[in-house]
């Protein structure tokens, strides 16, 4: 029998330290749903999603009950819709988003990802139509998430897409002005986007993926913080070792749930995403882990180094705990979804510039950042350009999820509710980047040797 201390440790992690499975995400290929008739394509999409995912929520809840581990979200990701919709005669892709929304509602999931386009080297006709329909699609649907990949290390940066995404984000914000620009919280602009990420809003089912797959994202910043509280003042070797061991345990939980879910649903197991995903709840913050390491506030000098250590140790511990690791796998630093980040931003410890530096050493990027409503589309594009450049040059995924909250300015706070939390409006560099963004074209792929 497992010894009592181990049993109590597990229960304590779940009950007091907010250990949970953040998401079970079912990836569904829609490649066989193409049709020259838009209505027919949408019928196929709806039928396929509701057929394959009909038991997803129930199985998730069963596992939750039987193993006593909370599973916060059950979600669906699908093939980028631009690839499916472009076979049809439709001009407006909002209808496809509505279909996804209905399918999500019917299956009971809280988000469906994949209203997406991959345009790192250029647009197809379908990509163009999809991107144009994003603002309306996200403001008229509830559960649909959208992502656009504008750059890769191999292709460089599509600056035309970067420019357009600045405008799309502004439009999406204005269409949901009464909700603080909520539509932008469901839209991610990526560089080097992973094809098997289970986390929203950036999840989609990549073209190299199987017919249907289960990916799982774990979470547990609170558990890591509590473990570090026990090694106060110890050297960094001890800190890294403690995080590794904790990450191992957290990930084993994810592996178990992923295998069990895929077995019960009769769907292949894809990956476990080794991410530390915070929530606005107290005791579930990545920023507080960094502060536990000895920083007065997240954002102080030393934050990037602390995050680098955390991110690396989480991966080292997690990799051995799971047979297949993928997705984003790293610490998330979404400002509005992390109590410690919110606090650090309000107190002026954390700036967009510091967050940008932090994204060089951890997963994702500038995530859930609220900026003043009068921030121009060009400035948003320039923020995107900076962030994707970091990803492209460093051969990693980076992303931007930014909300120019209409009518809000520095000092205000925007409430999104639920897991999306509340974001303090952060200061943006007031100098213009308009002429830079206006150039358009592509920034060539970076050289892969002579790396300094």
């Amino acid at each position, binding site marked *: *029998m*497992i010894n*009592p*201390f*181990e*049993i*109590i*440790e*597990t*229960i304590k992690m779940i009950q007091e330290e907010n250990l949970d499975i953040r998401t079970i995400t079912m990836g569904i290929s829609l490649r066989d749903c193409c049709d020259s008739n838009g209505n027919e394509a949408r019928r196929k999409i709806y039928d396929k999603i509701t057929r394959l995912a009909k038991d997803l929520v129930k199985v998730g809840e*069963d596992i939750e*009950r*039987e*193993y*006593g*581990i909370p599973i916060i979200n059950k979600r669906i990701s699908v093939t980028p819709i631009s690839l499916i919709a472009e076979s049809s005669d439709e001009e407006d892709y909002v209808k496809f988003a509505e279909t996804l929304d209905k399918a999500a509602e019917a299956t009971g999931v809280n988000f469906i990802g994949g209203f997406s386009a991959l345009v790192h080297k250029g647009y197809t006709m379908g990509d163009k139509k999809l991107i144009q329909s994003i603002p309306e699609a996200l403001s008229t649907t509830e559960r649909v998430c959208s992502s656009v990949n504008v750059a890769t290390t191999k292709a460089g940066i599509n600056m035309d897409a970067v420019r357009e995404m600045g405008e799309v984000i502004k439009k999406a914000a204005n269409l949901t002005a009464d909700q603080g620009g909520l539509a932008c919280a469901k839209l991610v602009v990526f560089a080097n986007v992973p094809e098997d990420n289970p986390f929203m809003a950036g999840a989609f089912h990549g073209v190299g993926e199987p017919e249907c797959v289960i990916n799982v994202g774990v979470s547990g910043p609170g558990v890591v913080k509590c473990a570090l509280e026990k090694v106060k003042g110890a050297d960094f070797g001890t800190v890294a070792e403690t995080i590794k061991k904790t990450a191992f*345990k957290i990930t*084993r*939980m994810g*592996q*178990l749930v992923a295998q069990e879910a895929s077995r019960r649903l009769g769907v292949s197991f894809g990956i476990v995403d080794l991410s530390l995903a915070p929530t606005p709840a107290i005791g579930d913050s990545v920023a507080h882990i960094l502060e536990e390491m000895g920083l007065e506030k997240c954002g102080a000098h030393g934050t990037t180094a602390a995050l680098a250590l955390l991110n690396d140790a989480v991966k080292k511990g997690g990799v051995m705990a799971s047979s297949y690791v993928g997705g984003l796998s790293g610490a998330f630093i979404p400002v509005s979804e992390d109590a410690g980040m919110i606090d650090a931003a309000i107190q002026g410890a954390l700036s967009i510039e510091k967050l940008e530096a932090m994204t060089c050493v951890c997963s994702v990027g500038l995530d859930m950042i609220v900026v003043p409503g009068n921030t121009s589309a060009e400035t948003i594009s320039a923020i995107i350009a900076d962030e994707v450049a970091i990803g492209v040059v460093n051969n990693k995924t980076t992303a931007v999820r930014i909300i120019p909250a209409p009518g809000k300015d520095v000092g205000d706070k925007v409430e999104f509710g639920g897991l999306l939390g509340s974001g303090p409006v952060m200061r943006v560099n007031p100098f213009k980047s308009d002429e830079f963004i206006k150039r358009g074209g592509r920034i060539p792929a970076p050289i892969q040797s002579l790396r300094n």
Partner: protein
Amino acid sequence: MRAVITVIGHDRVGIIAAVSTILADCNVNILDISQTIMQDMFTMIMLVDISKATTDFSDLAQQLEQKGNEMGLSVRIQHEEIFNSMHRI
């Protein structure tokens, strides 16, 4: 199939009797039982066999939880596998 039942709270008369009555009614066999005081809390851990149980898992969990609430204790049942996977390679 085996599960672990944990009872955490303040010690009092009749805890084991209450839990084991429910288990007997549901035809759940107790394989091992241990109790200790951990951080000033009474902690009882039972390993049980639920393969011949006459009620389904969620019903059993609910009955135990309800009994726990009545007695001011936290009573939970979880598949053994979650502890094995977390603590054993």
